[in-house]
């Protein structure tokens, strides 16, 4: 990729200079020009009001991309079940395959896992490659990437999708390096580009503050890891038929490169660090009694967030001071702050006003918190919070 500035369109407004994080563009003599520090990140492109900065996508033409066909989903299993993220990818993969007029195929590695293949067909796969061997009973980088790299080189899928779980990210990045593919991590959007039949991958960057759209012009397959809970899970259709191909492999434990010594299923007790948390649900005096913090905790758990508290509740002994948000508590700046039964006195605001999004739930319409809330709900929190928790649970499970 290259960036160039169309001099005839440049008005030297200097917005690109402000936006560039690397001092990669400067304005001199009434014109913007790229400096040595330009890192081709592309942020200036969208900021230019006259569209004077363009991205050029050179085409080398060394790869015959027409040889690569098919959308693949690499399945991840856990405790004998297909993981939700894989199922979501089958749903999205089906749509992409239909648009590309090709097959949706899944790759399943495991041991005594045949029965899962049929499930994947029900979720939309036209074909499932099954590799059954004790060496791949549980995910390990070495055996999985070796087997799958071989399959990819043999069958040449155009697109390969992996769920962006820790195991999926471990596998995807190793695999992409092995086969020289382009991999886009942690996608929140997958579409077929309207200008060329390429996979358009949308993902957050800079801590989620900006979104980037990525293309992989020539390298094949186009690989993407996708965040779980982004795409909807498809409904299983038991009447669907598909081919199940058992791939014979000769795997040797000695070539595995690593050994799993122990698996510990500890529930991380939902202890999310308050100061670093991106989502915080906080409770205030409106909760009326200490046991009602359970409502706050449940909502926080569903959102994967931390639990915060107003000073009043801490002083009243309803929750420990480590949860206190405010002038004399902790200062937080999460993406989302949900204030439940908190009036929003200035000393509380001092601790959370720099949150990106603030949701306030309070029965008092004149509570100061509503002046700062992005979304305000005036009403009975004892009805609203359980309903919200249930609705979110429902939508996330879908």
């Amino acid at each position, binding site marked *: 990729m290259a960036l160039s500035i169309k001099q005839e369109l440049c008005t030297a407004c200097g917005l690109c200079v402000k936006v560039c994080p690397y001092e990669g563009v400067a304005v001199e003599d009434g014109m913007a020009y790229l400096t040595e520090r330009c890192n081709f990140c592309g942020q200036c492109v969208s900021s230019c009001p006259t569209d004077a900065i363009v991205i050029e996508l050179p085409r080398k033409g060394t790869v015959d991309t027409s040889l690569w066909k098919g959308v693949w989903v690499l399945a991840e299993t856990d405790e004998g079940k297909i993981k939700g993220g894989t199922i979501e990818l089958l749903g999205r993969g089906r749509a992409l395959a239909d648009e590309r007029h090709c097959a949706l195929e899944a790759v399943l590695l495991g041991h005594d896992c045949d029965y899962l293949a049929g499930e994947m067909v029900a979720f939309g796969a036209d074909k499932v490659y099954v590799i059954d061997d004790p060496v791949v009973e549980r995910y390990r980088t070495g055996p999985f990437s070796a087997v799958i790299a071989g399959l990819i080189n043999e069958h040449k899928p155009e697109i390969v999708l992996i769920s962006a779980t820790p195991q999926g990210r471990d596998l995807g990045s190793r695999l992409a390096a092995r086969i020289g593919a382009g991999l886009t991590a942690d996608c929140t959007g997958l579409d077929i580009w309207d200008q060329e039949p390429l996979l358009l991958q949308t993902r957050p960057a800079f801590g989620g503050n900006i979104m980037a759209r990525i293309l992989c012009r020539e390298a094949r397959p186009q690989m993407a890891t996708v965040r779980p809970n982004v795409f909807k899970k498809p409904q299983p259709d038991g009447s669907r038929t598909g081919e199940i191909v058992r791939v014979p492999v000769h795997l040797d434990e000695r070539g595995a490169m690593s050994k799993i010594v122990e698996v510990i299923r500890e529930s991380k007790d939902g202890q999310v660090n308050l100061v670093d948390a991106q989502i915080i649900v906080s409770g205030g005096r409106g909760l009326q009694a200490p046991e009602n913090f359970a409502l706050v905790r449940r909502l926080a758990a569903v959102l994967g967030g931390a639990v915060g508290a107003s*000073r009043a509740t801490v002083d009243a002994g309803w929750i420990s001071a480590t949860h206190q948000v405010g*002038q*004399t508590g902790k200062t937080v700046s999460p993406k989302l702050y949900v204030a439940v039964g908190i009036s929003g006195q*200035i*000393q509380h*605001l*001092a601790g959370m*006003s720099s949150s990106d999004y603030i949701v306030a739930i309070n029965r008092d319409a004149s509570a100061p918190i509503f*002046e700062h809330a992005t979304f305000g709900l005036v009403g009975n929190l004892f009805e609203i919070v359980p309903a919200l928790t249930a609705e979110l649970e429902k939508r996330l499970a879908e």
Partner: protein
Amino acid sequence: MDFEFNEDQQAVLDAVRELCVEELRPKAEETDASGEFPWENIRKLAELDLCGIPVPEEYGGLGMDFLTWAAVGMELSRACTTTGAVFGAHMLAQYPIMLFGTEEQKRKYLVPLSTGEKIGAFGLTEPNAGSDAGNVKTSAVRVGDEYILNGTKIFITNAGEAETYIVIGNMQPDRGARGMTAFIFEKGFEGFTIGKNEKKMAFPSLPNRELIFQDAHTPAGNVLGGEKRGFRVAMQTLDLGRIGMGIGAVGVAQAAYEHALAYSKQRVQFGQTISNFQAIQFKLADMVVEIECARLLCNQAAWLKDQGKPFELQAAMAKLYASEVAMRVTNQAVQVLGGYGYTKEFPVERLMREAKLFEIVEGTSEIQRLVIANHILK
């Protein structure tokens, strides 16, 4: 005239800034309220080589200068006033040894003070010798190869936690300043005990205790600067102490201003943030100007000291001005925060109580004015 720090100084300041923002400031309220000496913070300073910034490397220090020490002191005070106060008082034990210590005294006492292994204190003030520093009555008598001291010191910062004490005694109590002699004492010397802590208007976690000398022994080798030369030791130490007080005051003022600024941008009255009102804007503007002046005076005094030039006048000016600025700024900061500023919910009332210390300790504002007047009229 170069008003910029050089790269080494800036590197140190950047590191101290990070420490302040990430560790000291978040628990400053706790440190103050605990009523206990901030050992954790001091140990951190020691770990990071911050306890002997201007002390030569051969004596365990960083080998930098007093300007850096002053700038670091301002940052520490700004983040946590108690820690800043301990930091400033600690130098009062190091400095006289740097100036007057024998090689042996430097090796034995200056090194552990500079590595932060031990804390230091400076004992001059007595119940009847405050501004009248020459009225020191703690008697000192040479007996064999020791000196025996009898008397009491009060309000001594770091006393009790410190292990090394610079004590000003008097070998001729009836002849005033002429007999004053400086001694080095260690915690635990026979006859030397630490008395009660004062309950003060602020700084509950900063020890200010009595030193009690009842036939207290110190070896002859612990005379600092020579017999009957103690007045000189005391006065020169106080010169540096003035800068130390100045930097503490600047830190307090800076912290108060920052709270006032932040509050003014959030507090809404009459349909807008109060930062839109000129009454508030003028207060904030005045704060900024005064704090900057105080800072520059402190920096100048420290710089002159580093250049080996006379700095006593500028040190007195810095201390006088910075301490009065701290009072004015903290007072106005409470005013800006209004009712909330008067509560313990916000730190400005504490800062205002803390600010008062700097107008009194280490030479009251009245004494500073005398010092300055003497300079200009001599």
